């Protein structure tokens, strides 16, 4: 066995669930194997080891989206210090649930939550790869155990990791699931983004009779207009379609295309994010 990869895990704006996925919800076998392959020198939730200035990492995981100006500088520094940067989870990849706020003017958001918005210094939510190059992206809310293990085994063996580019539908067929997009009624159960969402989640939602909500973001070359037409044909409103596309990965160009019809109609709650004009 070669040396362990010197690894650091950094948390930005997120719920920290993906860290807990690794620390707590992985099977004991995967957890112990991870510790065999990776040497965590910085992992604040797991250990009180201090961050060393100007340290160098073989592998850096970045969890969470970027939503302060200081964090932009921090991720740039992490990029310089690391050989491989892996985006860790849906927030790092596409902004995650807090990216829903990007469709509302920031001032309005601040006013809704805090009585004195002048005290706030918030900015919009951005995926990590808007500021730095990310070598590999673990997707999903939360990340998937099998995909994580595949990735670190490949990296430890100095091989190119395999990340799926096909849609969730492929995995769903392999799992012998009934197609809920065709069968069921109701938004939660049948407005399924499976045909346009990247696989790798081992059909976590559809095997529980829930529609895929696209937490892993778009697959390669998705047919978004056709997806929207299918939803409309099933009788879903533009507002419903908008919310489905913008839950986890609405900032990706592909999914924001699906959301477009609604906000361009001057919807009462949302407006098009100017800084991200297509």
């Amino acid at each position, binding site marked *: 066995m070669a040396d362990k990869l010197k690894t650091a895990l950094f948390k930005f704006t997120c719920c920290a669930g993906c860290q807990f996925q690794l620390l707590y919800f992985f099977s004991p076998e995967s957890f112990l194997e991870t510790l065999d392959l990776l040497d965590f020198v910085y992992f*604040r939730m797991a*250990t009180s080891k201090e961050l060393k200035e100007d340290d160098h990492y073989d592998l850096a995981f970045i969890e969470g989206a970027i939503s302060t100006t200081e964090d932009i500088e921090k991720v740039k520094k992490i990029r310089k210090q690391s050989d491989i940067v892996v985006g860790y989870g849906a927030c790092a990849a596409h902004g995650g649930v807090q990216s829903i706020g990007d469709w509302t003017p920031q001032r309005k958001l601040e006013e809704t*939550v805090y009585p004195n918005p002048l005290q706030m210094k918030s900015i919009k939510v951005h995926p990590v790869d808007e500021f730095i190059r990310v070598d590999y992206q673990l997707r999903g809310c939360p990340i998937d155990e099998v995909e994580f293990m595949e990735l670190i085994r490949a990296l430890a063996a100095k091989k190119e990791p395999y990340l799926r580019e096909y849609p969730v539908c492929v995995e769903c067929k392999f799992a012998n699931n009934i197609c809920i997009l065709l069968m069921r009624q109701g938004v*939660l159960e049948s407005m399924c983004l499976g045909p346009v969402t990247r696989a790798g989640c081992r059909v976590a939602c559809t*095997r529980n009779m829930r529609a895929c909500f696209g937490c892993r973001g778009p697959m390669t070359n998705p047919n978004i207009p056709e997806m929207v037409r299918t939803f409309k044909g099933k009788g879903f409103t533009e507002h419903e379609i908008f919310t489905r596309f913008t839950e986890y990965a609405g900032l990706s160009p592909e999914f924001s295309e699906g959301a477009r019809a609604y906000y361009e109609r001057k919807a009462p709650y949302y407006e098009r994010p100017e800084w991200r004009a297509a």
Partner: protein
Amino acid sequence: MRERRPTTSGRSGEQRKRIDVGYFARTEGEGGIHAVISDHKLESFALDIWEPPRFFEGFLVGRFYYEAPELTSRVCGICPVSHHETATKAVEKAIGLKVDENTTKMRRLIAWTQIVASHIIHLYMLALPDYVGYDGLIEMLPDFPDEVQRFLRMKTAVNAITDAIGGRALHTMSSIVGGFTRPTSKKRLKKLAEELKKVKDDAAETVRLFGRLPTPQFEIESTYVSLLGDGDYPVNAGMLGSSDGLRISENDYRQHFREWQVPTANTKYTGLDGKNPVRVGAISRVNLNYDLLSPDAKSIAQEIGYSVPTRNPIHNNLAQAIEIVGGIDGCLELIDEVDPESIGVARHEVKAGEGGGITEAPRGSLYHWYRVNGEGIIEAADIVTPTAHNAFNLEKDLRELLVEIAEREVDEITLECEKLVRAYDPCFSCSVHIVKT
């Protein structure tokens, strides 16, 4: 990252001590405290809360009612189920939907597994390394194989039940407004109950382990708040009560509790009647509902000499350990009672309305409130997390602790403060975190 730097300066005879903790390790999120002690008196003190806000209450406006449980479960990675179930309860109240008793029991079961799971995380991964002098559980692995193996056994057994009911252990999805899309089978639950029974000894051992650890003698007056059980230990139902005799229904929550913004923080502080700090969490639940704990939990509490009501904030760790035993018994009992095969999703029409719900999350009482219009769109939302409930009280306790130990050395003061903060088991990304200057 900021380091701890003891400094002494000033005029001769006067001693100035500065306490700086920039970033607590092994707490959920980032957090810090800053204090200056001059001539054995507390000169200044700040608990700064600064983490980037995520505006959940803002972006929920304009979303559909059925999205609330799923989106708010992403508030916290340690207690997603608690947020999920509280949001479900509040939304159902807002749209005027009632679910049957079986569904409520199933929700109670999954909420119990969440409390037990979160306590296991806190005690073994976040708190224990402090006491044995290690950086973390990973570093403890070679020297404490028994404890680490016990941790792994317990979490595997408990996670399996959350996974069976919720469809996944983290960020569950089979539970939705109205019921469960794919409830598990009685047979599977029975099988998992057998596994759970096997770790009951491990749970008792956990209580003994934490009972043996040295606990500083430090007593403080606080108002303890939690749901009050009615025959059962409170998890997702009951009146909200306090050690000062408060008894209110969850519908009246907003008349008694008020949030306000403070200059040093992105977390809003919460107080009873808009001014009095309250303490929520395992310590409050055990203080107020000791009689409702399972017989085994009570006997193990007696064995380690845990007496209620306790006034020592560090005892929260012991209360959590006792709740693990009580929680496992609670789960076993519910698995016997519940009938998963009969659970479905209740059909419902959406009525405009508003409603709030309180449940006991691992870290204490959690409040969600929503106003939904006739089309099912959320018009306003309010979430008060346990850490937001506690923030004001934590500041008060730290202040009193600092006054009491102001004469000691800087390193010792820092360690005691850190222990107190960690015993609160704060969840900074829930409340919007706590941090630096």
